[in-house]
């Protein structure tokens, strides 16, 4: 297989998987660029933040940081807390990204929620290069976000059509991936644990602070499960 064909087939396999993310990021990235502009940070700043930090929801939080007295340590701390869930993505991708080669640092750099949900649940089709497939999924998502947020800064105020509710596309993406995992696996302990622990922590800690307690509770329950379940644990969903 020649090089060109290798990349072409990987791109063609990757692109359809990123369509929901294209829709969601086009909308949310645009909204982000617009919000930045409205706060005095033009398209170049949206471009810099999106391309360097690339962290979706944290970037919205960061608008507040950019419009308050200079507090870099607070920014670092908030980024760690808001993005702590990435620790779980890394743990889940250790095996899949093993031996993937030179692109690995880039794949890790841009491992956001949406990219994780695709690279974790989709295998490249027969005959498609793994590294190239994961690269294109990751790169396209990154490209959509950076481009949309820059364009939002440039033209945001000129767009006038009713997009209310369009951001639901990313929620829908996660729900469908959840369903897919559910339909594929036989053991649903982990999936139920994820939903139940998150809802419990959401009720106990409120919308602003429930992610980290949820992660800890999930870890705790899954560790107990490993301890008390005898024998080999089948692939869990």
């Amino acid at each position, binding site marked *: 297989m020649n090089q060109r064909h290798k990349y072409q087939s990987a791109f063609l396999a990757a692109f359809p998987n990123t369509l929901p993310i294209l829709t969601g990021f086009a909308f949310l990235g645009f909204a982000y660029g617009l919000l930045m502009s409205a706060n005095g940070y033009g398209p170049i700043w949206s471009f810099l933040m999106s391309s360097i930090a690339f962290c979706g929801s944290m970037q919205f939080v960061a608008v507040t940081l*950019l419009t308050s007295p200079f507090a870099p340590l607070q920014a670092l701390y908030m980024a760690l807390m808001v993005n702590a869930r990435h620790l779980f993505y890394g743990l889940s991708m250790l095996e899949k990204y093993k031996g993937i080669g030179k692109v690995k640092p880039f794949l890790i750099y841009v491992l956001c*929620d949406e990219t994780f949900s695709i690279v974790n*649940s989709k295998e490249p089709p027969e005959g498609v290069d793994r590294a190239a497939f994961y690269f294109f999924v990751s790169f396209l998502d990154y490209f959509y976000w950076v481009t949309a947020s820059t364009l939002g800064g440039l033209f945001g105020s000129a767009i006038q059509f009713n997009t209310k509710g369009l951001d639901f596309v*990313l929620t829908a993406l996660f*729900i469908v991936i959840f369903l897919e995992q559910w339909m594929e696996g036989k053991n649903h302990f982990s999936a139920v644990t*994820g939903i139940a622990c998150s809802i419990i922590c959401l009720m106990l800690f409120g919308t602003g602070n429930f992610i980290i307690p949820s992660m800890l509770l999930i870890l705790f329950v*899954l560790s107990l499960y490993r301890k008390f379940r005898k024998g080999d644990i089948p692939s869990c969903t």
Partner: protein
Amino acid sequence: MYLTPIQALIIIFAIALGTMLTRFLPFLLFPEKKTPPAYITYLGKVLPSAIIGLLVVYCLKGVSFLSFPHGMPEAAAVLSILFLHIWKRNTLLSIAGGTIVYMVMVQFVFI
């Protein structure tokens, strides 16, 4: 701009540093050459579906059942996704269908 360009850049780099620590840490702690402990391998197997569950709850966290519209648009959208996905099992169709139902609900039905 509220901050000076240099200050704004420092904020961007601070956020990037925090974010990248969370993304790179697992790979730095468990490099390819060493076999990770069995517990970590176990977590790598069971965590994905738990996290996707967490992400679903995270996306729906703002839904209030007590005040109007009582989570009705979200419920309608989630049910359409369930129905479409069990019926056709086509990822893009389910996502597009659910999103359109949600948009119709928030723009025309529950205003």
